[in-house]
């Protein structure tokens, strides 16, 4: 199918984009990489009056260091994450997560900010933001807001942005260089949305877990912080941790549902498995680090 007609602007600055969103009074849709929006437009599931294209805004690109955090510009493309030196070194779990998004051809257009703003509950990046306690920066004509990832997701594809707000960047708080990334997902085919996934990072200090940031995806209406697991892990010595026991408890945080791909029960069963095996691998990596 073809999209319904719409107006189109491609501003060159964030201020112009915010003005366009404000003028549209809620009738606008932002296009970043377009890898989700274009199908919705083509299927006429989305029929905006005006599409605001943010691809020409140079300020939205790039990665920078801010005190205590790495800030990723909203328009950083997913393929750029894969080869970005700073991200590979300081935020390897983000790189790992992006490897599992869609396909080569969609990662060439898809963006970090687009995926984070969209908030598909089974997607990798929203969960990564929740796991690592990232902050989402939103701009509008009335100013800038910093929204913690935990407060950002309200439901499937629902977030706490106002209609005139634009996601401009995502700040990931610093993790020490020696942190251990943790990532595991199960999908029917490569590139499909995960049926079940877990993502995050651990820090091990003198044989003990000193910090943990973990989140589930595909396990409920939003990405879900694995708070129980985090609580059970922090302060424990590596030898004292039994991944299976923690997985059994950790699953209580999730709220999976039945759909055509898998039952809630299946998701819980697999969730425990992949959690335990990802944790086992992370602990092993911690012993040898």
């Amino acid at each position, binding site marked *: *199918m*073809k*999209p*319904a*007609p*719409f*107006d*189109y602007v*491609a501003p060159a600055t964030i201020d112009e984009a915010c003005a366009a969103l404000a003028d549209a009074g809620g009738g606008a849709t932002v*296009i970043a990489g*377009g*890898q989700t929006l*274009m*199908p919705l*437009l*083509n*299927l006429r599931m989305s029929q905006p009056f005006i*599409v605001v*294209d943010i*691809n020409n805004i140079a300020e939205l690109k790039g990665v920078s260091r801010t005190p205590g955090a790495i800030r990723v510009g909203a328009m950083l493309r997913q*393929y750029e994450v894969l080869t970005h030196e700073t991200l590979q070194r300081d935020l390897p779990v983000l790189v790992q997560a992006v490897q599992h998004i*869609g*396909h*080569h*051809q*969609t990662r*060439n*257009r898809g963006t970090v900010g687009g995926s984070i703003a969209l908030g598909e509950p089974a997607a990798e990046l929203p969960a990564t933001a929740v796991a690592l306690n990232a902050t989402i920066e939103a701009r509008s004509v009335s100013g800038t807001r910093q929204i913690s990832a935990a407060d950002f997701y309200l439901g499937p594809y629902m977030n706490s942005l106002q209609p005139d707000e634009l996601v401009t960047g995502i700040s990931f708080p610093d993790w020490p260089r020696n942190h251990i990334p943790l990532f595991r997902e199960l999908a029917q*085919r*490569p*590139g499909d949305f995960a049926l079940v996934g877990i993502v995050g990072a651990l820090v091990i200090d003198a044989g003990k877990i000193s910090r943990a940031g973990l989140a589930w995806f595909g396990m409920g209406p939003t990405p879900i912080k694995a708070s129980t697991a985090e609580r059970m892990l922090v302060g424990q010595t590596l030898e004292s941790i039994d991944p299976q026991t923690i997985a059994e408890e950790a699953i209580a945080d999730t709220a999976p549902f039945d759909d055509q791909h898998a039952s809630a029960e299946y998701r819980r069963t697999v969730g425990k498995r992949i959690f335990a095996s990802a944790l086992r691998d992370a602990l092993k990596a911690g012993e040898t680090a």
Partner: protein
Amino acid sequence: MSKHHIEVTINGRRHTADVEARISLSDLLRDNAGYTGVHVGCEHGVCGACTVIVDGLAVRSCLMLAVQANGAQITTVEGLAAEDGTLHPVQQALLEEHGLQCGFCTPGVVMTLAALTGNNAKPSEQQLLGALSGNVCRCTGYQGIRRAAKRLACAETGEHA
């Protein structure tokens, strides 16, 4: 709805058009510019048949607006073979390995492989197969396509399996 004036380079030739914003790049290439080698299978980003190269990167042309391609360099399957008909190495590999049957998915497969093996890149077999996970084929059972990918990876890295 107003029309937008765009100028793109397709297979080395300049092309200008006045398009509505809702026109996809795939429709621009097929209907406006006549490059019907761009195949549209699903029109929502699932099949990969519409893959073309935009500024050096393989992208799904049904997932991009034509206006967004303003100023871009685009290569379609029509732009790969030499003037005298000599096939591009990717096309030759698919031909010899029986990597196509009906040919509907083939332009997308070709453009994905061409993007990754172009500019003296040396992709591994794993990288090529990973990228091909974005191209659906209903006919071949993929074995011929896989063999072609393997051959292209080997040819580029100089190691023969």
